[in-house]
């Protein structure tokens, strides 16, 4: 039930954030510094989520098949593969390395 509650909170906050842009006076968000923070936040959060999902297991740092998935995905992106192909390559790398016996 708690999970449902926070899903609803995330959805309401997400919608109100979008709507805010249509309602506040233009100069508030046209501020270049605010736009820059929105940009750096997006980059920082995505980098953090990438790393956390690669090496964190609870509060432990673990090197396992997920690291192989990260490398394989980077190669696919470097070769300009579309999003869905990158995701499948990541899954295949992790599944393949586990078949070879990696944790």
């Amino acid at each position, binding site marked *: 039930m708690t999970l449902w509650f926070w*899903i609803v909170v995330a959805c309401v906050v*997400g919608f109100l954030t979008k709507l805010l842009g249509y309602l506040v006076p233009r100069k508030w968000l046209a501020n*270049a510094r*605010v736009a820059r923070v929105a940009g*750096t936040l997006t980059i920082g959060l*995505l980098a953090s989520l990438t790393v956390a999902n690669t090496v964190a297991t609870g*509060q432990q740092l673990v090197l396992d098949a*997920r690291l192989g998935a*990260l490398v394989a995905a980077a190669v696919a992106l470097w070769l300009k593969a579309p999003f869905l192909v990158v*995701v499948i390559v990541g899954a295949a790398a992790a599944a393949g390395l586990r078949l070879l016996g990696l944790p």
Partner: protein
Amino acid sequence: MPTSIRQSPGARVGLSIAVATGLYGVSFGALSVASGLTVWQTQALSLLLFSGGSQFAFIGVIAGGGTPVAAASAAALLGIRNAVYGMQLNVLLHPRGWRRLAAAQVTIDESLATSTGQTDPLEQRRGFWVAGIGIFVLWNLFTLIGSLAGDALGDPKRWGLDGAAVAAFLALLWPRLRSRDAGAIAAACALATILAVPFVPPGVPILVAAVVAAAVGWFGYRAGPDGEGLEPDIDPYPDTVQTERTDPS
């Protein structure tokens, strides 16, 4: 004479982006149920939150053992850029009444990119609505297909779905790393995450990284002609949308 909707370049670009983006809803659906959400909870995120980065952030924190509060916080922080997009789109489209609410809900990376990639005001409007509504419909449809398939798969690790999540986050980050500054911020936040993992509960390292990123953005700000490649509106499909961009290298 305005072109008909059939020949509209804005609508065409919007449609192709809707198909490409909608399809990867299947990966969100599958990863969401693998992280422990139900099919209904997964669908609620796609219908109501409807912002790929925020949705992946929510399930990414849950999958790592984080609390729902940390998951909602990460999702909310990643959604802040949508407010900046809303401001830009409000200037371009001036939606009124219920259309303003609908426009807000479909304000995401791709609809902004489609709209701002057009120069004619009519095409900007068509591009925004075709991309926004098209992605909304297809993203939700493919989320459902993905979550039902994911439910049937069984052990997510055997299929490498944790590796798929890593790949999805890297793919969301990749097009934003167009400048040296962007790369440096990504590296600093990645390092902050690794250093924080052993000391704070799961999910919180992501919020630590958010503080680092916001501080760099706020205090490292230099007035200049552009955002040094850090502006939030990154074009996710540079080959499809006709926009002029300078090469960062």
